[in-house]
């Protein structure tokens, strides 16, 4: 059943918001105003949004170091995120977390995670909570192709199978973990096959196609909600930037990003699909584009002028008695 137009438009808005958020960060980072290391999600938007479109604030996700897209798709406040990335006091985590640690429990966002493989066990725990409460909610663990080589991820997958936990493992295969290709580092390169080895259903989908991801998630969700336990979704995707901002990408063919921007741009693919099928008209999409640009402009302006934390903030949110 096709999604109703309002949900389609919302999905487009979220993908577009992620894209512009990241493209703008790519520019703003050159100013030197943004501290630390930033990993951009451009190119992978259809995965985060295709998955999270099914979820509400009471469902859970655990994210990764490349987490901005997951946060936006799960409903985190865009300006609060921007402030966090700039290290501002009114950021979503008071400037204490930064790009790699954005979290918002009120949105079911269990946190970006700078430890590869840190998230999946946490997601299984949230799934156990859902199961215990019988609230019909699920937990999603996002991870990259690289993360599926981490023992903690295997432990989480097996535990979820054993407990029939309503957990969904989403692996975004963007071809690389840092400077190393997935065809080198992921033996067999068959992440779904690994998941099946643990005894859960798994499917591979085109991560540049919102509709393919969305459909796969629909099946996984139905199974999880009906007590059928975990599933895995392996989404084939690409990243439009380096591993982190400043990565010279010596490991990638020179024209690869340009080619992928031509052929694997999930926003373009989405627009083509919805107009082909007359699901949304292009004026509505253009209006969303304009709204999103204005939102990103406002967020950056707000982040730039926002106050930094003060030295007193250093000692809050932790038990200190000495």
């Amino acid at each position, binding site marked *: 059943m096709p999604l109703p137009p309002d949900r389609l438009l919302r999905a487009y808005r979220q993908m577009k918001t992620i894209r512009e958020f990241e493209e703008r960060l790519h520019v703003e980072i050159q100013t030197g105003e943004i501290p630390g290391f930033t990993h951009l999600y451009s190119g992978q938007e259809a995965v985060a949004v295709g998955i999270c479109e099914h979820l509400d604030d009471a469902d859970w996700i655990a994210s990764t170091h490349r987490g901005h897209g997951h946060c936006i798709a799960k409903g985190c406040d865009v300006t609060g995120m921007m402030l966090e990335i700039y290290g501002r006091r009114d950021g979503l985590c008071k*400037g204490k977390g930064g790009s790699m640690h954005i979290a918002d429990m009120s949105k079911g966002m269990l946190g970006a995670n700078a430890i590869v493989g840190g998230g999946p066990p946490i997601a299984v725990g949230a799934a156990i909570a859902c199961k215990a409460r019988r609230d019909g909610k699920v937990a999603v663990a996002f991870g990259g192709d690289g993360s599926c080589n981490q023992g903690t991820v295997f432990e989480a997958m097996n535990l979820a199978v054993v407990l029939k936990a309503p957990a969904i493992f989403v692996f975004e295969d963007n071809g690389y973990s840092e400077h*190393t290709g997935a065809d080198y580092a992921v033996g067999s390169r068959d992440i779904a096959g690994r998941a099946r080895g643990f005894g859960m259903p798994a499917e591979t989908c085109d991560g540049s196609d919102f509709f393919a991801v969305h459909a796969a998630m629909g099946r996984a969700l139905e199974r999880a909600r009906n007590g059928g336990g975990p599933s895995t979704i392996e989404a084939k995707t690409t990243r439009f930037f380096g591993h982190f901002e400043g990565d010279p990408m010596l490991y990638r063919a020179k024209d690869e990003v340009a080619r992928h921007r031509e052929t694997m741009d999930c926003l373009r693919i989405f627009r083509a699909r919805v107009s082909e099928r007359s699901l949304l008209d292009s004026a509505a999409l253009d209006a969303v584009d304009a709204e999103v640009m204005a939102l990103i402009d406002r967020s950056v302006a707000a982040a730039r002028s926002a106050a930094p934390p003060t030295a007193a903030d*250093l000692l809050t949110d932790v038990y200190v008695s*000495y």
Partner: protein
Amino acid sequence: MRQLSMRDAINEALHLEMARDPRVIVLGEDVSGGAGGTSGQRDAAGGVFGVTKGLLPKFGEDRVIDTPISESAIIGAANGAALAGMRPVAELMFADFLGVCFDQVFNQAAKFRYMFGGKTACPIVIRTATGAGMNMGAQHSQSMYALVTAVPGLKVVVPSNAYDAKGLMLTAIRDDDPVVFFEHKAIYPRKGAVPEGDYTIPFGEAALVREGEHVTVVAIGRMVSFAEKALDALAAEGITADLIDPRTLSPLDDETIYESLENTGRLVIVDESPPRCSVASDIAALVASNAFHALKAPIVQITAPHTPVPFARELERAYVPSPQSIEAAIRRLVKQ
């Protein structure tokens, strides 16, 4: 003399020792890079900080091993290779990732020699990037050397400069015990005079970086240069200090600290880790136990607060001890 960055000094030590000893292998994530990529270019990274650059083209894929993201397997495989007669240098990209592989570090590597009744050694080196100062957040900025210093069987090295880093790395690889080698990421680019060729710096021998009268300052890693800045500023007031860089935390050259205290009677310890169960508190305890008679004033520990490392620039700056906070603490102590 020739000036090299700490990064290049460690790189040179690895080159030298791999050329000298065919048992030395290097393994870790992206230690070369480009494997399986679409450019066909290997050595595309040489480690995320460039410390292992150029090793793959020289020594080949059997000895320079790019691994998947699997810290337990990296350290475990280094342990196994060591038991089987190699001298592995494993890279743990960030010291925080000790959290992922701690079993292989403290239950396995640390125990073999003793637990097997001296039948084997475990000559591995775990090289890892440590410390705050680059706004990398709570999971990429910690100073975790106290954790491993607490484990019998492990040796722990924290170089503060390029010269020491090279000499200590050569010692580390030749040492028969497992060595955790903490490289402060904020001082990788800092240059210093580094001789060409082979030289070693023994473990358990502190460096007396400066000699002075009024106070003994013990500083670890990056904090050594911060302490030097503080002492530069205090020189105008006539305050001088013995500045001691332990260089290795295990074994620890505590004797040099006691000897200095016989002259100065006052001790300041600077450590960028949180204060509890830290190397600073450990040195303070040793001094209180073994050199109490020499102390004219309470020991001062300058550390990070008991919090995770914050992200924002303003917070991280407030978190890490600064030359100014060190200067103020020394002045207060000396004028007491």
